[in-house]
């Protein structure tokens, strides 16, 4: 599933963006060295093919559910990891712009989850390591299935981590994982079967790897390390600057609450000495364009009681705002339409 802007915080989104941009750069450089120029149109039309293929629902035998081709692993098998990443990245970009699938801030996350993970993690770690050409046979089928399943599981895990770190959704990691992983296992079974079948069908007519000759087959370890670093930085800095109580207090808090649904009280920040995150928080409020924004928000921040009156005003004002904006716009548009239709020769 695509990550969405609505669930993402700028820090996490930004961090993943850096990772995606770095990978794009490295993959682009790698492909530029390719002497055979036939990969240029091939990548373009294959991207369009995957786009179309994702919309065709196929019934998976035995489950009755329908699945579709995801593409990441198939692309890696056909084009190699670098080209596969670029192709997936381009598909995700078009989806974000044309179909509001995901979003612009989440585009970096999606490129990593649906592009980097299948091409640079699942594919080299499993598929390339355990298969040799000719790419046929039962062993190949099993390896492909495992590769696809792994890619989807890791992708789902990534979404869970990104959402939790952002703190906009209230789902805690545990419940979220329980939700996402089984679903993606089911999706993965469908996708892996489709991938295997399609690959087997075309492998008999031509040798796919020859489509992009001369491409360097080694995974650039630097890419991996850099991207991981960016992801960790984006997520890792957050606990430092969080409004949450520091680790020890928080786990104590955890231990004393009876269930997830018990009211959790925020720590009394005033009562503690100025800790690092408090200082950071102050500095940040003063300097940053985003006021009262801690790098990491959790939904467990309680809506302060004293704001309930302003909340009411907020609601009224908000509704009025929206109303004003829309009526003004519609009024202006009607006026403009009347003006243009009044002109002769229209």
């Amino acid at each position, binding site marked *: 599933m695509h990550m969405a802007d609505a669930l993402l915080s*700028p820090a996490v989104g930004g961090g993943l963006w850096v990772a995606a941009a770095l990978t794009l750069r490295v993959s682009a450089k790698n492909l530029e060295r390719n002497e055979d120029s036939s990969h240029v149109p091939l990548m373009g039309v294959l991207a369009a093919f995957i786009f179309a293929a994702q919309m065709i629902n196929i019934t998976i035998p035995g489950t009755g559910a329908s699945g579709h081709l995801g593409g990441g692993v198939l692309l890696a098998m056909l084009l190699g990891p670098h080209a596969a990443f670029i192709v997936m990245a381009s598909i995700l970009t078009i989806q974000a712009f044309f179909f*509001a699938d995901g979003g612009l801030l989440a585009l970096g996350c999606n490129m990593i989850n649906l592009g980097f993970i299948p091409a640079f993690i699942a594919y080299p770690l499993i598929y390339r390591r355990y298969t040799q050409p000719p790419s046929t046979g039962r062993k190949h089928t099993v390896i492909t299935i495992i590769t696809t399943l792994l890619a989807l599981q890791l992708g789902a895990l990534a979404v869970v981590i990104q959402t939790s770190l952002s703190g906009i959704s209230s789902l805690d990691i545990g419940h979220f994982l329980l939700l996402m992983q089984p679903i993606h296992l089911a999706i993965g079974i469908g996708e892996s079967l489709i991938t295997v079948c399609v690959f087997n*069908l075309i492998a008999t007519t031509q040798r796919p790897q020859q489509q992009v000759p001369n491409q360097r087959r080694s995974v650039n370890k630097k890419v991996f390390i850099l991207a991981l670093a960016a992801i960790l930085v984006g997520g890792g800095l957050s606990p430092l600057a969080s409004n949450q109580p520091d680790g020890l207090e928080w786990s104590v808090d955890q231990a004393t609450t009876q269930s997830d649904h018990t*009211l959790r009280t925020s720590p009394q920040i005033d009562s503690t000495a100025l800790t690092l995150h408090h200082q950071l928080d102050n500095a940040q409020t003063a300097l940053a364009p985003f006021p009262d924004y801690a790098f990491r928000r959790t*939904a467990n921040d309680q809506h302060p009681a004293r704001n309930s009156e302003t909340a*009411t005003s907020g609601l009224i004002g908000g509704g*009025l705002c929206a109303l004003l904006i829309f009526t003004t716009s519609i009024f202006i548009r009607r006026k403009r339409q009347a003006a243009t239709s009044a002109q002769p020769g229209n």
Partner: protein
Amino acid sequence: MVTLDSALWQLNQSNRLAEGTTWVHRLDPRTKLFTTLVFILFVASHGPLQISALIPFIVYPAFLLFNAELPLDYVIKRLFFAAPFVLFIAVFNPLIETQTVIIAGYELRQGWLSMSSILIRFVLTASAALILLASTGIPQLCTALNQFGVPQLFTRQLLLLHRYLLVLLTEGLSVYRATQLRRYGKRLTLATGANLLAQLLLRTTTRANRIHNAMLSRSFSGEIPTPETNAKLTKQDWSFIVGWCSLFFLMRHINLAIYLGQLLEGLWS
């Protein structure tokens, strides 16, 4: 889940809208891209419980929508299709966040607030991206991306994908319909579906071959050259960027909705 034929229709519509000639369309694509990204960042930076502070932000997409003369249903239809995943996650908020708040005399679970916040963010960020596209078009956006440092190889890939998307979707739909006519209501099985996809894939690779031949015939050497654009940002571009970004900054710091609400309440009493 978008289907092939609705995707075709939506793609055609987006392409058509991008050909508009309003002043918004004529703005430098860098202007629109940058401002939209800043907008999304500001929206995303709000706390998980903020709702009223987000509402004034609707002025940006609304302004662009109406000035670029885009139909409202262009945005609404696509939001409908894209909403499921967000909704799916957001719906857990009221189930998990059960602390209550009092608003306008009513007691509400905090989770409803955070869920509403998510939905508003979704509407804001998604519509901003859609409107950016419909008022700019992929070719211009790619030029802007290049100017912002995105590798040429990637923008070239985007352009080719965009160019052949309609072709492949049409072909895909054609093949799909052909199977539909002989399935008599039965679902698309794995065997048939995989064969369908394999056929499409083979056709795609032979098409790529033909395109490559056409490129070679016109002296293609690996790089796709594009005419240089040395366009500078105009005063209009700069005032657009500065104006809107300042407004976003203001709205992020001051909850305009609350002010308006308090004003109204003041007038009332």
